[in-house]
């Protein structure tokens, strides 16, 4: 029987329910009553002891949200979300602000262990401080773990503080650096931006705040893990990263969630601000629960991520490996305001089972001699739908704009779909745009060649897929490229014979 036909037979019997991270931590959690109302917004703000202006900001967003309608334009199809049937706040019950990691609920720490968070980070979470020079090499990683709605621990704060870098939960930043937060919050993604961003502005519970002062190269990679545990909660984290003049920071976001039968909502907002000669590298490895083979359950990932290259020579680089989520809707974008600023977007989006991914980027060229680069690799398997949606635009005054875009899609099996929807708009004549896209499958010849050398159909597919996504994997910080590779292999398990 031809190998392709066999593959197809086996696709039909995939067990997408092999989600490795599908377990629940049994801890007590403190929840606000279900539903969303002004009282809930006040409740959240009060729980975090936020300043008055923050509450006013939230309420403003909430009232605006009530007037807005959910967007329906993306190529995704989902059952309507009952916003009153969710908990908007859930935090593991614990004493007031832990002073050390010993006070963290051991169940929570066990959760991170099960998640396979790199050993180094496990040790960090457990409070083991390495001696100078005993590292196995590579940079150390400061980890802020967000468990449901609250940041559980942030490590390496002291060392970062020495460099002047602020890395803490946003709730803490509101207490300790309120002026900084107020200056930048909502300036890249205003509360009016879109339905989910507005909702997030009203009920965001936590997220990371990073400030890197002038001329400082952040001494380590900053990392955050998110995990949604509670049933029927929405995760609304809000991240704000500011790179002051001449600074550099690399930030990594990783996410997993347990399996559930009801869908869970993840509506995050990430704002990046880069001033003159500074750079932010933002990497995401996302592995939210994708739903089962029938498309039941799974995370709805609706995220607004935007970076503002405010200064000249500013640079933002978004790298994402998306393998989870039942529904994904996210377009990490760059506003290239400063002259000579640069935006980059590297993406691997894999969909299997009945996942739906509609993701891409927007590069808005406003300044002079700005450039952007987009490399997007989509892999669709099972009965999934995988769409790249991108906008590259050069404003009339954005002379000397350059963009290169390459979107490739790989289809595994005849029941999925891969789509490319690029918008390319040039409003001045010194712009140079180059866009190319291809869609195909792994050729039978290539598969046969690998199999003749001894690889099974699955091994051959994994090998070729790795080659296909190589350009993007290379952009990830070393620690996470390996994890991402494993994740890719796992998410394609069962898609080929």
């Amino acid at each position, binding site marked *: 029987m*031809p*190998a392709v036909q066999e593959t197809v037979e086996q696709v039909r019997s995939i067990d997408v329910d092999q989600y490795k991270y599908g377990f629940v931590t049994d801890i007590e959690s403190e929840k606000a009553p279900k539903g969303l109302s002004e009282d809930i917004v006040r409740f959240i703000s009060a729980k975090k002891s936020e300043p008055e202006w923050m509450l006013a900001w939230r309420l403003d967003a909430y009232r605006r949200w009530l007037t807005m309608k959910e967007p329906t334009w993306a190529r995704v199809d989902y059952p309507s979300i009952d916003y009153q049937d969710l908990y908007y706040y859930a935090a593991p019950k614990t004493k007031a602000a832990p002073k050390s990691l010993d006070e963290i609920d051991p169940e929570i720490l066990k959760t991170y262990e099960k998640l396979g968070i790199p050993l180094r980070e496990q040790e960090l979470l457990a409070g083991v401080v390495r001696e100078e020079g005993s590292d196995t090499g590579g940079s150390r990683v400061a980890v802020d773990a967000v468990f449901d709605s609250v940041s559980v621990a942030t490590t390496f704060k002291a060392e970062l503080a020495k460099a002047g870098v602020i890395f803490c939960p946003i709730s803490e930043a509101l207490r300790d650096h309120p002026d900084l937060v107020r200056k930048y919050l909502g300036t890249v993604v205003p509360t009016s931006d879109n339905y989910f961003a507005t909702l997030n502005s009203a009920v965001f519970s936590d997220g990371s705040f990073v400030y890197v002062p002038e001329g400082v190269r952040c001494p380590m990679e900053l990392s955050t893990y998110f995990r949604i545990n509670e049933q029927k909660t929405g995760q609304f984290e809000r991240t704000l990263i500011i790179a002051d003049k001449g600074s550099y920071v690399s930030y990594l976001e990783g996410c997993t969630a347990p399996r559930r039968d009801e869908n869970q909502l993840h509506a995050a907002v990430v704002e990046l601000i880069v001033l003159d000669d500074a750079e932010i590298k933002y990497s995401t490895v996302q592995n939210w629960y994708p739903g089962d083979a029938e498309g039941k359950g799974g995370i709805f990932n609706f995220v607004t991520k935007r970076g503002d290259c405010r200064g000249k020579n500013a640079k933002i680089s978004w790298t994402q490996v998306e393998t989870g989520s039942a529904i994904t809707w996210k377009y990490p974008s760059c506003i290239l305001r400063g002259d000579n600023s640069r935006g980059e977007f590297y993406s691997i989006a894999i969909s299997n089972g009945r996942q739906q991914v509609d993701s891409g980027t927007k590069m808005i060229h406003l300044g002079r001699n700005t450039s952007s680069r987009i490399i997007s690799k989509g892999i669709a398997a099972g009965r999934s739908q995988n769409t790249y949606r991108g906008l590259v635009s050069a404003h009339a005054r954005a002379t000397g704009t350059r963009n290169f875009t390459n979107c490739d899609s790989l289809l595994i099996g005849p029941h999925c779909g891969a789509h490319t929807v690029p918008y390319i708009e040039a409003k001045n004549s010194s712009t140079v745009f180059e866009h190319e896209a291809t869609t195909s499958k792994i050729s039978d010849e290539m598969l046969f*060649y*690998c199999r003749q*050398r001894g690889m*099974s159909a699955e091994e051959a597919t994994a090998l070729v897929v*790795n080659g296909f996504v190589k350009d993007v994997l290379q952009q990830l910080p070393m620690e996470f490229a390996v994890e991402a590779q494993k994740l890719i292999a796992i998410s394609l398990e069962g898609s080929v014979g």
Partner: protein
Amino acid sequence: MIPLLQIKNLHVEVGGRKILNGLDLVVDKGKVHAIMGPNGAGKSTLSYVLAGKPGYEVTDGEVLFDGEDVLAMEPDARAARGLFLAFQYPMEIPGVATLTFLRTAFNAQRKKRGEPELSVPDLMKRVREIAAKLDINPEMLRRPLNVGFSGGEKKRNETLQMALLEPRLCVLDETDSGLDIDALKVVADGVNRLRSPERGFVVITHYQRLLNHIVPDVVHVLAAGRVVRTGGKELALELEATGYAQYQAEAA
């Protein structure tokens, strides 16, 4: 002693067209068999059927490799049993470094056979040794497999894979096509180094030239999907002088 390869009355169709019409062939280990014939005779079809390429329908006959029915096996299972096909047109695999490809294939076969896998340093050592003998620049091992390689480089790569994987039956599909005399010599030397009492070769070629370098024990003429003549190595020289015309007439 069971022959290494036994092909009995093999009939094969491709896209509804009959290509092999009752092909018989027996190859003992330690021997080199050459298969020559005019274009369209079914030479490449034979090599693909042995390797298990999809799209080739066996309508009758059997193929036994070490006495085992090979036609029922998947391509990678046949490979793990020790069957190697040197492709006439080796594939390019973007983004996959040659070394990565070699390691994946090598260990995949080992795993299937229940043998221990080789560590990266050990494997690299082996690969370098073989590469040096084939005049392959180690830089090439880092480049994506066959991407941008010349014809000669691709064929030397095939020979490297063969030497690394140590198959028991090597099927060379027109290995000489597209090679100049120097590349041909390097490849032929590589093949000859692999000759052993435990190993058998099926060398498929249109031209006699290759057989000056890889001297066969047996020569078969394949015409219209069947073996129409079998002889010693002199048969190759005879064919060079007379051409295939008489066999095409016979087979018709």
